[in-house]
């Protein structure tokens, strides 16, 4: 196992980076903010049909590329650097859950469509206290779900939602289609402009319970969520570091570029240090995901725990070190600041992650 990128991974990173620069630079996020659209559907089509990003980690037998988690991580780093808005994260998590379950029909029907980018899927994980969904039997293997889940990644745009439901014999996962009666999706005011989040309300909504070990599938999805959010954060944090270093070289005060002053220089040095540490932890997690599955949960937790704080901190420092200009709406710093706040808490915040890591380590 090597931590540094292979030639194939460098090539993938390069092609995603060029795609992002060409088709989804930061300016396009501002267009989404004014249009109110959750993401650019043309960009999504190209990301999936052209670059195959939704199917990167889906095995070939289900229409994906079977390239593995390290490749997915490499791509997410590049997307994160430019805060590309897309339903990729929800799709990737839903695909992981489907792969881990034993529902052949659902796998055959849904995975190839997810890999192609034709079907938007998401995992409706309850995170807010008080959220819960209950199931009632409706015959024919079908169930009806009642309750509420929030915040759900791309919950308003998803064609299918995988909804975990607590049961007497552990959790089960139910498949809800967008046209099901009694399903209401309400878009939330997302602090991060690059994420579309929704509250999903279910009122005796028809669903199908999927076969397989739901607890194991959810735990795999949680690990993947940690890897994915850490990957995006590594890219975004590097963008903050590059942007702020560049500014510290050209902005002059008191007769010096501000980067000459230790008050500025040392904060940037700390940002560089935290990024290097987070990146090393991320590379380890990505490799473990492909090559040492027994280590993946702890390694992904480590990466997430480190980057949640490091990126959020770096993004605030980016605002601070730019001074007044960094606090304006026109400057990009606030886009990262908000993304950092959001990445830190989505799908399990820092306290929850540390508890999970402590469990994993057997403390």
């Amino acid at each position, binding site marked *: 196992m*090597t*931590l*540094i990128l292979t030639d194939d991974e460098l090539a993938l990173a390069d092609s995603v980076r060029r795609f992002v620069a060409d088709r989804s630079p930061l300016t396009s996020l501002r267009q989404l903010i004014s249009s109110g659209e959750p993401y650019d559907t043309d960009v999504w089509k190209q990301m999936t049909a052209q670059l195959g990003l939704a199917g990167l980690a889906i095995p070939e037998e289900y229409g994906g590329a079977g390239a593995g988690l390290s490749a997915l991580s490499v791509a997410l780093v590049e997307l994160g650097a430019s805060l590309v808005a897309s339903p990729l994260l929800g799709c990737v998590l839903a695909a992981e859950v489907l792969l881990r379950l034993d529902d052949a029909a659902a796998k055959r029907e849904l995975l190839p469509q997810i890999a192609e980018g034709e079907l938007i899927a998401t995992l409706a994980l309850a995170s807010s206290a008080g959220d819960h969904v209950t199931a009632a039997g409706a015959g024919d293997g079908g169930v009806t779900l009642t309750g509420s889940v929030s915040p759900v990644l791309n919950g308003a745009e998803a064609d299918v939602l995988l909804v975990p439901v607590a049961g007497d014999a552990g959790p089960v996962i139910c498949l809800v289609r967008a046209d099901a009666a009694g399903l209401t999706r309400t878009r939330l005011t997302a602090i991060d402009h690059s994420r579309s989040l929704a509250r999903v309300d279910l009122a005796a909504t028809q669903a199908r319970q999927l076969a397989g070990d739901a607890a194991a599938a959810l735990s795999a999805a949680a690990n993947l969520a940690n890897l994915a959010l850490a990957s995006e954060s590594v890219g975004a944090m590097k963008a903050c*570091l590059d942007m702020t*270093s560049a500014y*510290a*070289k050209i902005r002059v005060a008191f007769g*010096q*570029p501000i*980067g*000459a002053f*230790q008050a*500025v*220089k*040392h904060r*940037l*040095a*700390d940002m*560089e*240090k935290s990024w*290097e*540490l*987070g990146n*090393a*932890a991320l*590379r*380890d997690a990505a490799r473990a995901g492909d090559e040492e599955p027994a280590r993946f949960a702890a*390694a992904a*937790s*480590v990466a997430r*725990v*480190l980057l949640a704080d490091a990126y959020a901190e770096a993004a605030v420092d980016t605002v601070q070190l730019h001074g007044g200009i960094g606090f304006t709406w026109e400057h990009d710093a606030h886009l990262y600041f908000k993304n950092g706040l959001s990445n830190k808490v989505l799908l399990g915040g820092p*306290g929850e992650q*540390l*508890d999970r*890591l*402590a469990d994993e*380590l057997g*403390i």
Partner: protein
Amino acid sequence: MSEDFRARARAWLAANAPRRASGDDEAEAGSSGQAAALAEQKAFQAKLCDAGFAGITWPKEYGGQGLTSAEQIAWSQESRDYDLPTGAFFIGLSMPGNTLLECGTEQQKKRYLPKMLRGEEIWCQLFSEPGAGSDVASLQTSAVRDGDEWVLNGQKVWTSGAQYSDYGAILARTDPTQPKHNGISMFIVDMHAPGVTVRPLKVATGHSPFNEVFFDNVRLAADALIGQENKGWDAAVVMLRHERIAIGTMSSPRTSPLAYESLRALAAGLGRTSDQGVRRRLAELYARGRAVQLFALMLREETMAGRPPGARGSVAKLAGSELGRFAGSVAADVLGDQIAGFDAAELRAVTTAIIAAPGSAIAGGTSEIQRNIIGERVLGLAKDPGVDRATPFNQLRVGTQRTEGKGPR
């Protein structure tokens, strides 16, 4: 790299080296190996050298093995869990040794390096002075020409191993009329020469891992100069780079009292692992410790791939020091009020390590200096204004200065 080398290293270590014991008191600088008697260390180093595991990357003509960094890394990995009694040679080999290799004359390399490798002669490094710490180039120790020779006067401080060293690499001012960086030379000084006085320096833990060294009209021979006269700063930069790499990539043993494994065991022993706060702190310590290890691993992989870390060694140094400080605070949390007062003898090592932790952020270039290096040489930010760079040294204010009755200026 031949897998043969790794297999040979593994077999030799298993047959000849003692395993690490947990609970070693490593609060004093460096590895616990320093506790072993000097004669024992010298005998071990000679055996190590004869077996082909000393100076792995050094050229054969100077006593080395002429191998690559791949073998060096394999050796570091294989020897990690052994307690090699070689602490007395660590500084000499990694700093003056590597610097002589880069900057020394052919004669110096042939004379000194083989004996250094076999542990027959021990070396120390003499840079810091009471008035010159982070600003090493403001040093005041002087070497004045006397015919072909020089006469050395001054004081050095924080010198590890001076009490048992045979030679030292010393920085001294040879031209005080030049700006500070331009009038310095590096010399080899015989630590047994008349006029050299070594005194132990007691630190916050109560231990004396360092020395003060005084030079009183010590004569330096004509061939004692390392590199060129008045170009000693160039050699110093080389040595400081080796120092950062040595410190930054030093793998801290899992048995160190502030290592995650040790603190987790301590917390379990004290019945503190049911406390959610303690559990979270331990988990965070594990995460931070892993990242520091993984970053060092990544630097080694990059080196092997032909991309030497350069100034990013400073990131490793800074991160390692901060980890130590964080581990110290986690250890204090685990101990609770036992940090204030305890009667269990086994808590001595961990409390000493807590007190010793801040030292690593000062030794080998403070964290502030590392941040300057990272900012300037990794990120490419503008250099410090450096108002003293062009001023002749003899017109500079250096060290700690007070004006009577007016307070510090």
